[in-house]
């Protein structure tokens, strides 16, 4: 039987939304307070939704410990208490918006997903990043 399982993690980090392709005025108009040159931070919540079949013996759809290790290694350790613009290589060239953050989390997980969870194992179906309670970005593999 196939189920969807969602696991949530948290990390706190700082960022600044500023695009070098725009003028200072355009950046201020587009990103508002998020363009503050000194940066600011959020308590981010990451939700990983996985689709898998439930093992008849264990009753589990995924090796949760393996998923937790993957998340810790690929997302939480590199992002937690960091300045995303300065300390995460992808955001030296991309603006660390919630959208780009979701895409980066998705890339990092998919790059080694099959090695850790098996090519025939559970699939990563959706990555959601909550920046604040009013700002959530979802990236799914089906839409």
């Amino acid at each position, binding site marked *: 039987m196939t*189920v969807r399982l969602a696991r949530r993690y948290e990390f706190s980090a700082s960022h600044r939304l500023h695009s070098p392709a725009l003028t200072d005025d355009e950046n201020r108009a587009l990103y508002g307070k998020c363009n503050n040159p000194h940066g600011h931070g959020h308590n981010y919540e990451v939700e990983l939704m996985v689709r898998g079949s439930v093992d008849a013996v264990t009753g589990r759809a995924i090796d949760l410990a393996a998923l937790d290790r993957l998340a810790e290694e690929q997302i939480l350790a590199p992002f937690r208490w960091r300045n995303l613009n300065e300390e995460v290589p992808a955001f030296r060239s991309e603006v660390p918006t919630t959208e780009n953050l979701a895409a980066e989390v998705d890339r990092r997980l998919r790059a080694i997903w099959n090695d850790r969870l098996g090519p025939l194992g559970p699939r990563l179906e959706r990555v959601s990043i909550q920046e604040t309670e009013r700002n959530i970005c979802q990236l799914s593999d089906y839409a």
Partner: protein
Amino acid sequence: MIISKKVEFSASHVCRSTELSEEENIRTYGAAANPLGHGHNYVVEVAVTGEPDPVTGMILDLKRLKEILEEKVLSVYDHRLLNLEVEPFDRIVPTVENIAIDIWNRLERQIDPTGRTRLYSVRVHETNELYVEYRGEE
């Protein structure tokens, strides 16, 4: 259209399989393998799909849904040790995956005998960090 209702129950369980060795149980379930059990405040979100009735404007009478949830789920699960007191957990491990599937099985045929609306999903939150959703056979 999809409409959902949320209810809660509290229960204890032991996540441990007699088919696995002690080491495999610890590796699979972690602290949840404690043989003396532990508990959660489970939150169950039940989603129903259909079109609103032209007269009542409702997909399903939510009072009726609440009664079904009370009778078929809460009265069975609330304040129980799932492994000993709730079938089928005398035979299968009461993981949150299996709980979501079991609640689906208890509800599927109860929602609307006329077939105008049907159960869409059962989502069970075990903690703030973990939930499982079952949408029936896919």
